[in-house]
Protein backbone atom coordinates (compact mmCIF):
# COMPACT_ATOMS: atom_id res chain seq x y z
CA UNK A 1 0.00 0.00 0.00
CA UNK A 2 1.15 3.46 -0.65
CA UNK A 3 -0.86 5.80 1.56
CA UNK A 4 1.35 8.71 0.67
CA UNK A 5 -0.51 11.15 -1.49
CA UNK A 6 -3.96 10.05 -0.33
CA UNK A 7 -6.02 13.02 0.70
CA UNK A 8 -6.54 13.22 4.44
CA UNK A 9 -10.20 14.09 3.94
CA UNK A 10 -10.62 11.00 1.79
CA UNK A 11 -9.12 8.86 4.55
CA UNK A 12 -11.36 10.40 7.16
CA UNK A 13 -14.52 9.94 5.13
CA UNK A 14 -13.62 6.36 4.28
CA UNK A 15 -13.22 5.53 7.97
CA UNK A 16 -16.78 6.70 8.72
CA UNK A 17 -18.04 3.59 6.90
CA UNK A 18 -15.91 1.16 8.86
CA UNK A 19 -18.74 -0.25 11.02
CA UNK A 20 -21.03 -0.82 8.07
CA UNK A 21 -18.29 -2.51 6.08
CA UNK A 22 -17.40 -4.74 9.00
CA UNK A 23 -21.04 -5.69 9.49
CA UNK A 24 -21.39 -6.84 5.89
CA UNK A 25 -18.02 -8.59 6.08
CA UNK A 26 -19.25 -10.63 9.06
CA UNK A 27 -22.38 -11.71 7.21
CA UNK A 28 -20.34 -12.59 4.15
CA UNK A 29 -17.51 -14.51 5.76
CA UNK A 30 -19.35 -15.76 8.87
CA UNK A 31 -16.03 -15.61 10.63
CA UNK A 32 -14.89 -12.81 12.90
CA UNK A 33 -11.18 -12.82 12.11
CA UNK A 34 -11.74 -13.29 8.40
CA UNK A 35 -14.18 -10.42 8.44
CA UNK A 36 -11.51 -8.20 9.98
CA UNK A 37 -8.99 -9.30 7.39
CA UNK A 38 -11.50 -8.60 4.65
CA UNK A 39 -12.21 -5.11 5.93
CA UNK A 40 -8.55 -4.28 6.35
CA UNK A 41 -7.80 -5.49 2.85
CA UNK A 42 -10.69 -3.38 1.61
CA UNK A 43 -9.22 -0.23 3.10
CA UNK A 44 -5.74 -1.00 1.87
CA UNK A 45 -7.09 -1.43 -1.64
CA UNK A 46 -9.22 1.68 -1.36
CA UNK A 47 -6.18 3.76 -0.45
CA UNK A 48 -4.10 2.16 -3.17
CA UNK A 49 -6.71 2.89 -5.81
CA UNK A 50 -8.01 6.12 -4.35
CA UNK A 51 -7.02 7.93 -7.53
CA UNK A 52 -9.70 5.95 -9.34
CA UNK A 53 -12.46 7.21 -7.08
CA UNK A 54 -14.41 9.99 -8.67
CA UNK A 55 -15.17 12.75 -6.17
CA UNK A 56 -18.85 13.52 -5.97
CA UNK A 57 -19.89 9.90 -6.40
CA UNK A 58 -20.90 7.67 -3.54
CA UNK A 59 -17.86 6.73 -1.50
CA UNK A 60 -19.88 4.28 0.55
CA UNK A 61 -21.00 2.32 -2.51
CA UNK A 62 -17.44 2.36 -3.86
CA UNK A 63 -16.09 0.92 -0.61
CA UNK A 64 -18.78 -1.77 -0.46
CA UNK A 65 -18.01 -2.68 -4.04
CA UNK A 66 -14.31 -3.12 -3.18
CA UNK A 67 -15.23 -5.22 -0.16
CA UNK A 68 -17.55 -7.47 -2.15
CA UNK A 69 -15.10 -7.89 -5.01
CA UNK A 70 -12.33 -8.73 -2.55
CA UNK A 71 -14.58 -11.26 -0.87
CA UNK A 72 -15.51 -12.86 -4.17
CA UNK A 73 -11.91 -12.94 -5.28
CA UNK A 74 -10.34 -14.42 -2.19
CA UNK A 75 -12.98 -15.99 0.00
CA UNK A 76 -15.30 -17.50 -2.52
CA UNK A 77 -12.37 -19.06 -4.32
CA UNK A 78 -11.57 -20.76 -1.04
CA UNK A 79 -15.05 -22.27 -1.19
CA UNK A 80 -16.12 -20.64 1.99
CA UNK A 81 -19.39 -19.96 0.26
CA UNK A 82 -21.65 -23.00 0.18
CA UNK A 83 -22.25 -24.57 -3.18
CA UNK A 84 -25.47 -23.44 -4.83
CA UNK A 85 -28.16 -25.76 -5.98
CA UNK A 86 -29.73 -25.31 -9.35
CA UNK A 87 -32.18 -22.74 -8.09
CA UNK A 88 -29.41 -20.68 -6.49
CA UNK A 89 -30.12 -21.75 -2.94
CA UNK A 90 -27.48 -23.48 -0.79
CA UNK A 91 -27.86 -27.21 -0.53
CA UNK A 92 -27.66 -27.18 3.21
CA UNK A 93 -27.48 -24.74 6.02
CA UNK A 94 -24.07 -23.39 6.93
CA UNK A 95 -22.76 -23.16 10.44
CA UNK A 96 -23.49 -19.78 11.93
CA UNK A 97 -21.00 -17.48 13.50
CA UNK A 98 -21.18 -17.56 17.22
CA UNK A 99 -19.85 -14.13 18.06
CA UNK A 100 -23.12 -12.32 17.49
CA UNK A 101 -23.99 -9.91 20.29
CA UNK A 102 -26.10 -11.52 22.96
CA UNK A 103 -29.36 -9.66 23.20
CA UNK A 104 -30.96 -12.15 25.52
CA UNK A 105 -34.26 -14.03 25.56
CA UNK A 106 -36.57 -14.11 22.63
CA UNK A 107 -34.61 -11.65 20.60
CA UNK A 108 -31.57 -13.89 20.65
CA UNK A 109 -33.61 -16.88 19.56
CA UNK A 110 -35.34 -14.98 16.78
CA UNK A 111 -32.07 -13.39 15.82
CA UNK A 112 -30.37 -16.76 15.63
CA UNK A 113 -33.08 -18.11 13.33
CA UNK A 114 -32.87 -14.97 11.27
CA UNK A 115 -29.12 -15.26 10.98
CA UNK A 116 -29.38 -18.92 10.08
CA UNK A 117 -31.95 -18.18 7.44
CA UNK A 118 -29.87 -15.31 6.10
CA UNK A 119 -26.80 -17.49 5.88
CA UNK A 120 -28.68 -19.94 3.68
CA UNK A 121 -29.20 -17.25 1.07
CA UNK A 122 -26.71 -17.14 -1.77
CA UNK A 123 -24.41 -14.17 -1.70
CA UNK A 124 -26.14 -12.64 -4.75
CA UNK A 125 -29.33 -12.44 -2.72
CA UNK A 126 -27.89 -11.82 0.70
CA UNK A 127 -25.71 -8.82 -0.11
CA UNK A 128 -28.35 -6.65 -1.83
CA UNK A 129 -30.83 -7.51 0.93
CA UNK A 130 -28.40 -6.44 3.65
CA UNK A 131 -27.33 -3.31 1.83
CA UNK A 132 -30.85 -2.18 1.09
CA UNK A 133 -32.70 -3.24 4.23
CA UNK A 134 -30.02 -3.05 6.91
CA UNK A 135 -27.76 -0.30 5.64
CA UNK A 136 -30.64 1.62 4.07
CA UNK A 137 -28.73 2.08 0.85
CA UNK A 138 -30.67 3.36 -2.18
CA UNK A 139 -31.22 0.75 -4.87
CA UNK A 140 -29.09 2.70 -7.30
CA UNK A 141 -26.12 2.42 -4.96
CA UNK A 142 -26.84 -1.26 -4.36
CA UNK A 143 -26.89 -1.75 -8.12
CA UNK A 144 -23.50 -0.04 -8.31
CA UNK A 145 -22.12 -2.34 -5.65
CA UNK A 146 -23.56 -5.43 -7.30
CA UNK A 147 -22.59 -4.21 -10.74
CA UNK A 148 -26.01 -4.99 -12.15
CA UNK A 149 -29.14 -3.07 -13.13
CA UNK A 150 -31.50 -1.71 -10.50
CA UNK A 151 -34.22 -4.06 -11.73
CA UNK A 152 -32.00 -7.02 -11.02
CA UNK A 153 -31.40 -5.71 -7.52
CA UNK A 154 -35.13 -5.46 -6.92
CA UNK A 155 -35.61 -8.99 -8.19
CA UNK A 156 -32.90 -10.37 -5.94
CA UNK A 157 -34.23 -8.60 -2.87
CA UNK A 158 -37.70 -9.89 -3.63
CA UNK A 159 -36.47 -13.43 -3.99
CA UNK A 160 -34.28 -13.09 -0.93
CA UNK A 161 -37.22 -12.06 1.20
CA UNK A 162 -39.34 -14.78 -0.28
CA UNK A 163 -36.81 -17.39 0.75
CA UNK A 164 -36.26 -15.81 4.14
CA UNK A 165 -39.93 -16.06 4.95
CA UNK A 166 -39.87 -19.67 3.88
CA UNK A 167 -36.87 -20.52 6.01
CA UNK A 168 -38.19 -18.65 9.03
CA UNK A 169 -41.53 -20.43 8.76
CA UNK A 170 -39.63 -23.68 8.59
CA UNK A 171 -37.71 -22.81 11.74
CA UNK A 172 -40.92 -21.69 13.44
CA UNK A 173 -42.60 -25.00 12.66
CA UNK A 174 -39.63 -26.93 13.94
CA UNK A 175 -39.68 -24.94 17.15
CA UNK A 176 -43.42 -25.46 17.57
CA UNK A 177 -43.21 -29.16 16.85
CA UNK A 178 -40.13 -29.57 18.98
Amino acid at each position, binding site marked *: *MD*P*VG*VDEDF*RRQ*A*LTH*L*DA*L*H*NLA*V*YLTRNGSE*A*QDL*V*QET*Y*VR*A*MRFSHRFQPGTHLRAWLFQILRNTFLTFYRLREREPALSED*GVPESGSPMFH*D*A*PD*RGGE*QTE*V*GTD*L*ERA*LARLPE*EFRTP*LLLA*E*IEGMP*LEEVAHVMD*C*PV*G*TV*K*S*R*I*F*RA*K*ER*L*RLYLKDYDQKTTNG
Partner: protein
Amino acid sequence: MANEPETRYDEDPELTRLLRERLPRHPAPGSLRVAIVEAITPAPRPRWDWLWLAPSLVGAALAMVAVIGVATMLPVTVPGDPIQQIARAVVTEHARTLTWGGEQGVDVLPAALPRAMEESGLFVTKLFTGDDDLSLVSAAPTFVEQHRAISLGYMGRDGHAVTYVVMPGGTVTLPEVGRVQIESWRPLVRRESGFSLIMWKERKSNLLCALVADLVSDDDMTRLKQYFVKVRSATELSRTY
Protein backbone atom coordinates in the same frame (compact mmCIF):
# COMPACT_ATOMS: atom_id res chain seq x y z
CA MET B 1 -28.55 -13.83 -12.83
CA ALA B 2 -27.86 -10.69 -14.74
CA ASN B 3 -30.66 -11.44 -17.19
CA GLU B 4 -33.29 -12.31 -14.64
CA PRO B 5 -36.61 -10.47 -15.16
CA GLU B 6 -37.26 -7.33 -13.23
CA THR B 7 -39.66 -8.07 -10.44
CA ARG B 8 -41.50 -5.63 -8.26
CA TYR B 9 -39.49 -4.49 -5.24
CA ASP B 10 -41.27 -6.25 -2.46
CA GLU B 11 -42.14 -3.88 0.34
CA ASP B 12 -42.58 -6.35 3.15
CA PRO B 13 -42.67 -4.06 6.14
CA GLU B 14 -42.84 -6.90 8.65
CA LEU B 15 -39.76 -8.66 7.35
CA THR B 16 -37.95 -5.36 6.90
CA ARG B 17 -38.71 -4.47 10.52
CA LEU B 18 -37.57 -7.90 11.63
CA LEU B 19 -34.30 -7.56 9.78
CA ARG B 20 -33.59 -4.09 11.09
CA GLU B 21 -34.56 -4.79 14.67
CA ARG B 22 -33.62 -8.39 15.25
CA LEU B 23 -30.62 -8.95 13.04
CA PRO B 24 -27.56 -8.20 15.16
CA ARG B 25 -25.12 -5.63 13.86
CA HIS B 26 -21.42 -6.17 14.12
CA PRO B 27 -19.54 -2.92 14.55
CA ALA B 28 -15.83 -2.97 13.95
CA PRO B 29 -13.81 -3.78 17.06
CA GLY B 30 -11.55 -1.06 18.35
CA SER B 31 -8.45 -3.09 17.54
CA LEU B 32 -9.50 -3.29 13.89
CA ARG B 33 -10.07 0.43 13.74
CA VAL B 34 -6.63 1.08 15.17
CA ALA B 35 -5.02 -1.38 12.78
CA ILE B 36 -6.70 0.18 9.78
CA VAL B 37 -5.87 3.71 10.81
CA GLU B 38 -2.24 2.69 11.20
CA ALA B 39 -2.29 0.89 7.88
CA ILE B 40 -3.69 3.73 5.84
CA THR B 41 -2.03 6.64 7.61
CA PRO B 42 1.33 7.53 6.10
CA ALA B 43 4.27 7.50 8.44
CA PRO B 44 5.49 10.97 9.34
CA ARG B 45 8.04 12.15 6.85
CA PRO B 46 11.57 12.38 8.15
CA ARG B 47 12.90 15.86 8.67
CA TRP B 48 14.80 16.98 5.65
CA ASP B 49 17.83 18.03 7.65
CA TRP B 50 18.46 14.41 8.61
CA LEU B 51 18.20 13.15 5.05
CA TRP B 52 21.90 13.75 4.49
CA LEU B 53 22.82 11.30 7.21
CA ALA B 54 22.14 8.02 5.39
CA PRO B 55 23.90 8.89 2.13
CA SER B 56 26.77 10.40 4.09
CA LEU B 57 27.22 7.25 6.11
CA VAL B 58 27.06 5.17 2.95
CA GLY B 59 29.61 7.46 1.32
CA ALA B 60 31.94 7.26 4.28
CA ALA B 61 31.66 3.49 4.36
CA LEU B 62 32.39 3.25 0.64
CA ALA B 63 35.37 5.58 1.01
CA MET B 64 36.72 3.47 3.84
CA VAL B 65 36.34 0.31 1.77
CA ALA B 66 38.05 2.03 -1.16
CA VAL B 67 40.96 3.17 0.99
CA ILE B 68 41.38 -0.29 2.43
CA GLY B 69 41.19 -1.81 -1.03
CA VAL B 70 43.71 0.61 -2.53
CA ALA B 71 46.03 0.28 0.44
CA THR B 72 46.22 -3.47 -0.03
CA MET B 73 47.14 -2.98 -3.69
CA LEU B 74 49.92 -0.50 -3.06
CA PRO B 75 53.49 -1.83 -3.38
CA VAL B 76 54.81 -2.89 -0.06
CA THR B 77 58.04 -1.20 0.88
CA VAL B 78 60.25 -2.32 3.63
CA PRO B 79 60.83 0.85 5.59
CA GLY B 80 64.32 -0.11 6.69
CA ASP B 81 65.73 -1.17 3.31
CA PRO B 82 68.77 1.15 2.88
CA ILE B 83 69.72 -0.30 -0.49
CA GLN B 84 66.40 0.61 -2.01
CA GLN B 85 66.56 4.09 -0.55
CA ILE B 86 70.06 4.58 -1.95
CA ALA B 87 69.02 3.12 -5.30
CA ARG B 88 66.15 5.59 -5.53
CA ALA B 89 68.42 8.45 -4.57
CA VAL B 90 70.92 7.46 -7.23
CA VAL B 91 68.14 7.28 -9.83
CA THR B 92 67.01 10.74 -8.74
CA GLU B 93 70.55 12.03 -9.22
CA HIS B 94 70.67 10.45 -12.66
CA ALA B 95 67.33 12.00 -13.55
CA ARG B 96 68.54 15.39 -12.34
CA THR B 97 71.58 15.09 -14.57
CA LEU B 98 69.41 14.17 -17.55
CA THR B 99 66.99 17.02 -16.88
CA TRP B 100 69.42 19.83 -16.29
CA GLY B 101 72.16 18.59 -18.58
CA GLY B 102 75.48 17.82 -17.01
CA GLU B 103 77.66 17.78 -20.07
CA GLN B 104 80.53 20.16 -19.36
CA GLY B 105 82.83 19.83 -22.34
CA VAL B 106 86.48 19.04 -22.48
CA ASP B 107 87.53 22.53 -21.48
CA VAL B 108 85.41 22.68 -18.33
CA LEU B 109 85.82 19.13 -17.14
CA PRO B 110 89.43 19.49 -15.93
CA ALA B 111 88.32 22.29 -13.64
CA ALA B 112 85.11 20.63 -12.59
CA LEU B 113 86.71 17.44 -11.39
CA PRO B 114 88.92 19.06 -8.71
CA ARG B 115 85.97 21.07 -7.49
CA ALA B 116 83.81 17.94 -7.31
CA MET B 117 86.49 16.12 -5.33
CA GLU B 118 86.93 19.03 -2.97
CA GLU B 119 83.27 19.47 -2.21
CA SER B 120 82.46 15.78 -2.02
CA GLY B 121 85.39 14.85 0.14
CA LEU B 122 86.29 12.03 -2.20
CA PHE B 123 89.62 11.81 -3.91
CA VAL B 124 89.92 10.33 -7.36
CA THR B 125 93.27 8.64 -7.72
CA LYS B 126 92.45 6.93 -10.99
CA LEU B 127 89.61 7.74 -13.37
CA PHE B 128 88.14 6.21 -16.47
CA THR B 129 87.78 9.18 -18.78
CA GLY B 130 86.43 7.30 -21.77
CA ASP B 131 87.06 5.29 -24.88
CA ASP B 132 85.36 4.73 -28.22
CA ASP B 133 82.16 3.58 -26.52
CA LEU B 134 81.85 5.73 -23.44
CA SER B 135 83.03 9.26 -22.64
CA LEU B 136 83.29 11.19 -19.40
CA VAL B 137 81.27 14.37 -19.86
CA SER B 138 80.77 15.78 -16.37
CA ALA B 139 81.87 15.74 -12.78
CA ALA B 140 79.91 17.33 -9.96
CA PRO B 141 79.50 17.13 -6.22
CA THR B 142 76.10 16.01 -5.00
CA PHE B 143 74.15 14.73 -2.00
CA VAL B 144 72.84 11.19 -1.82
CA GLU B 145 70.87 10.12 1.22
CA GLN B 146 72.28 12.99 3.26
CA HIS B 147 75.86 12.11 2.37
CA ARG B 148 78.24 14.11 0.25
CA ALA B 149 78.98 12.28 -2.94
CA ILE B 150 80.46 12.71 -6.37
CA SER B 151 78.55 12.29 -9.58
CA LEU B 152 80.42 11.46 -12.78
CA GLY B 153 78.52 11.66 -16.03
CA TYR B 154 79.29 9.51 -19.05
CA MET B 155 77.75 9.49 -22.48
CA GLY B 156 77.56 6.34 -24.54
CA ARG B 157 78.25 6.25 -28.25
CA ASP B 158 74.60 5.53 -28.93
CA GLY B 159 73.48 8.51 -26.86
CA HIS B 160 72.64 6.80 -23.59
CA ALA B 161 73.62 8.72 -20.52
CA VAL B 162 75.28 6.82 -17.71
CA THR B 163 75.81 8.28 -14.25
CA TYR B 164 78.43 7.01 -11.90
CA VAL B 165 77.76 7.97 -8.27
CA VAL B 166 80.23 7.40 -5.45
CA MET B 167 79.40 8.01 -1.79
CA PRO B 168 80.57 6.91 1.64
CA GLY B 169 79.60 3.29 2.24
CA GLY B 170 79.05 3.54 5.95
CA THR B 171 77.58 0.35 7.39
CA VAL B 172 75.56 -0.47 4.32
CA THR B 173 75.93 -4.08 3.25
CA LEU B 174 74.87 -5.22 -0.17
CA PRO B 175 72.61 -8.28 -0.05
CA GLU B 176 73.56 -11.48 -1.76
CA VAL B 177 70.22 -11.66 -3.50
CA GLY B 178 70.54 -9.89 -6.83
CA ARG B 179 74.31 -10.26 -7.09
CA VAL B 180 75.55 -11.02 -10.59
CA GLN B 181 78.96 -12.31 -11.58
CA ILE B 182 80.65 -9.87 -13.98
CA GLU B 183 84.15 -11.00 -14.71
CA SER B 184 85.89 -11.10 -11.30
CA TRP B 185 83.31 -8.99 -9.51
CA ARG B 186 79.86 -9.77 -8.09
CA PRO B 187 78.00 -6.46 -7.95
CA LEU B 188 74.34 -6.06 -7.17
CA VAL B 189 72.17 -5.58 -10.24
CA ARG B 190 68.63 -4.29 -9.88
CA ARG B 191 65.98 -2.22 -11.56
CA GLU B 192 64.53 0.83 -9.91
CA SER B 193 61.87 3.18 -11.27
CA GLY B 194 62.53 2.17 -14.84
CA PHE B 195 66.31 2.43 -14.66
CA SER B 196 69.00 -0.18 -14.33
CA LEU B 197 71.57 -0.04 -11.59
CA ILE B 198 74.78 -1.83 -10.85
CA MET B 199 75.91 -1.25 -7.28
CA TRP B 200 79.05 -2.37 -5.54
CA LYS B 201 81.12 -1.50 -2.56
CA GLU B 202 84.84 -0.69 -2.49
CA ARG B 203 86.06 -2.63 0.53
CA LYS B 204 89.35 -0.83 0.84
CA SER B 205 87.95 2.70 0.88
CA ASN B 206 84.48 1.72 2.11
CA LEU B 207 82.83 3.64 -0.69
CA LEU B 208 79.50 2.71 -2.15
CA CYS B 209 79.41 2.99 -5.92
CA ALA B 210 76.51 2.89 -8.34
CA LEU B 211 76.23 2.97 -12.08
CA VAL B 212 72.80 3.92 -13.36
CA ALA B 213 71.39 4.26 -16.86
CA ASP B 214 68.20 3.84 -18.79
CA LEU B 215 69.55 0.65 -20.30
CA VAL B 216 66.88 -1.84 -19.37
CA SER B 217 66.55 -4.39 -22.17
CA ASP B 218 68.68 -7.53 -22.10
CA ASP B 219 71.00 -6.18 -24.79
CA ASP B 220 71.23 -2.82 -23.05
CA MET B 221 71.93 -4.55 -19.76
CA THR B 222 74.81 -6.38 -21.38
CA ARG B 223 76.19 -3.05 -22.53
CA LEU B 224 75.79 -1.57 -19.05
CA LYS B 225 77.75 -4.49 -17.65
CA GLN B 226 80.51 -3.72 -20.17
CA TYR B 227 80.47 -0.10 -19.00
CA PHE B 228 80.72 -1.38 -15.43
CA VAL B 229 83.85 -3.33 -16.28
CA LYS B 230 85.42 -0.27 -17.90
CA VAL B 231 84.63 2.04 -15.00
CA ARG B 232 85.31 -0.48 -12.25
CA SER B 233 88.70 -1.51 -13.55
CA ALA B 234 89.95 1.97 -14.43
CA THR B 235 88.71 4.07 -11.55
CA GLU B 236 89.98 4.34 -8.03
CA LEU B 237 88.73 6.68 -5.35
CA SER B 238 89.43 7.25 -1.73
CA ARG B 239 88.13 9.46 1.04
CA THR B 240 90.22 12.51 1.74
CA TYR B 241 88.85 12.85 5.24
